């Protein structure tokens, strides 16, 4: 177990270096100039040049990157160009709302996705099944900015059930979490439906029936516990999807999280913040996958953890 974790963490460290390098290269070759952006429109070329030297942007690429990496190892992500504060502080302040939003989205996708999937599988070919599968198709295909704006219009503007945006109470969370979780709910209802149909035809389900076990127990205990296994693994991967989704959803709903921060930083070419957010997202994806792998043996006794290197 310890060896497994060390192996996985070593992999994660390498991955983070790779992510930081690629992001750095992309930002370097970007035509936008952070110094000019900071100096403002009316600044003289001398001022812009002075800012560039001050930020170290006049140095060659390899020098800039090694300096960044050196600081990163010491836990220093630099200072925001625009806000003049430590990146770590800015990111740390924005992390809790995003985590809350993700937790809400996971609840949404599991609650809606699994319920619809199981119900549809119980009566394949029924009207409910057809309706649910059309709905899930809509859920999977609707872009998040469209879904978000529609929900805002219907539930906030017309019905006035939820606030139009912002952060603070559970009522603020409902619409953003629904929007972010909609895609997953659509996916999971389809996955769960086919997994349940598959499992309900297995021999052990017949054995359970032959014991006289009640039908709801056959479905919700014997079949469900097996059908849900692939979905548990998917939730870890979802965290990565949520990171990109958060940029859109947080912007639509004015949710003060990492996604909104990323959006603002990109507009201002605030390189340290962009780097910081990217690394946080990468860490989240790594942790999400690791968590899914660690949970798997508890869900499925046949799964054993194996260090990827000694396979």
């Amino acid at each position, binding site marked *: 177990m310890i060896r497994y974790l060390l192996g996985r963490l070593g992999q994660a460290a390498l991955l983070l270096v790779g992510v930081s390098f690629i992001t750095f290269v992309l930002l370097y070759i970007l035509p936008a100039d952070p110094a000019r952006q900071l100096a403002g429109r009316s600044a003289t070329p001398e001022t812009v040049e002075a800012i560039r030297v001050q930020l170290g942007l006049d140095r060659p690429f390899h020098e800039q990157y090694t300096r960044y990496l050196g600081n990163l190892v010491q836990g220093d992500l630099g200072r925001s160009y625009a806000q003049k504060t430590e990146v770590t502080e800015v990111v740390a302040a924005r992390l809790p709302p995003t985590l809350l939003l993700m937790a809400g989205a996971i609840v949404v996708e599991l609650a809606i996705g699994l319920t619809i999937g199981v119900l549809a599988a119980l009566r394949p070919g029924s009207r409910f099944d057809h309706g649910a599968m059309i709905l899930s198709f809509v859920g999977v295909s609707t872009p998040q900015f469209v879904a978000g704006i529609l929900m805002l219009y219907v539930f906030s503007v017309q019905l006035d059930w939820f606030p139009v945006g912002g952060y603070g109470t559970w009522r603020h969370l409902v619409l953003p979490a629904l929007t972010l979780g909609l895609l997953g709910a659509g996916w999971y209802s389809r996955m769960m439906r086919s997994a349940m149909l598959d499992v309900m035809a297995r*021999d052990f389900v*017949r*054995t359970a029936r*032959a014991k*006289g*076990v*009640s039908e709801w127990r056959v479905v919700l205990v*014997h079949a469900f516990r097996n059908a849900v296994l692939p979905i548990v693994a998917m939730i870890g991967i979802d965290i990565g999807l949520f990171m990109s989704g958060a940029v859109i959803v947080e912007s639509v709903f004015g949710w003060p999280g990492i996604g909104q921060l990323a959006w603002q930083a990109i507009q201002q070419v605030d390189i340290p913040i962009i780097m910081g957010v990217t690394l946080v997202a990468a860490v989240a994806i790594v942790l999400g996958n690791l968590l899914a792998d660690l949970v798997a043996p508890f*869900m499925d006794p*046949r799964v054993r953890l194996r260090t990827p290197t000694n396979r």
Partner: protein
Amino acid sequence: MTVFRVDNLAVSFGGAGRRVRVVDGVSFSVDRGETLGLVGESGCGKSVTVLSSVRLQPSPPSHVDTGAAWLGDTNLMGLDAKALRNLWGSRIGVVFQDPMTSLNPVFTIGSQLRETLATHTRGSAAEREERVLAMLARVGINAPQRRLQQYPHELSGGLRQRVLIAMALMLRPELLIADEPTTALDVTLQAQILTLLRELRDEFGMGIVFVTHDLGVVAQFCDRVAVMYAGRIVESARVGELFRAPRHPYTRALLASTPTLESPKDQLLATIEGMVPSPGQRGTGCSFAPRCGQASSRCREEAPQLIEADGRSLACFHPVS
């Protein structure tokens, strides 16, 4: 004393309009402490017959068209789902063919065994634990305490089949349905499982309906045997009589196609010419007529009824003497 009696069971598959008769007018009965073998080749309807008779064949797609199945004074065909669940696992035990896939992979052996007790009986957790351990020991599982914590994948096929037998017999059912319980096991294990089932049958006094395609197993294990062909019983008799003097041409051909230790090594096995008609293509006559050497024009037009005489039954116009 008859434990279980099936009268004129007919089962079909498919929706309205495209319905295909798979089991056609099957009757049999089994006494206390007796084993009835239901034998026939793959696809003859033997599994559908027994599973439908205890209402465990999923419906739809299957449908029981006619017939009754009497467990004591109760006709299973007249029961609702709840009443059936009360019988399954308590008065009717079932052991299925493949022990590798018949246990739920994500639950421990112990929890799956306790579930049978929890479903049908009241009692404390400690009492259940005790009964489960006693039953595991009874079916010949060593270190039962340790097995309870284990998952199915940690057990061999033979052990899993013993666990499934323990599960089916936990509440001492009066009827055991065994649907090819030894087919997936190697010969040594097969013999062990058959010995165990025979002991438990004598100890509990239950009747067993034993589905198999293996005539060797029938000879070893069964008291009476019913031979099925294309959804019907064509002959039934005590095992000794059937093997000594088969009267239906199909039974005789089936026995002839079984190798024995005495068969010469260089001699090809006897085969039955032609193919089993698929359920949709059975005509009005005897289903075996197209493959039968004795068949007359009457056989092709009229299906012979199963007629009982001298303690054995036969459905043939031209029996082999």
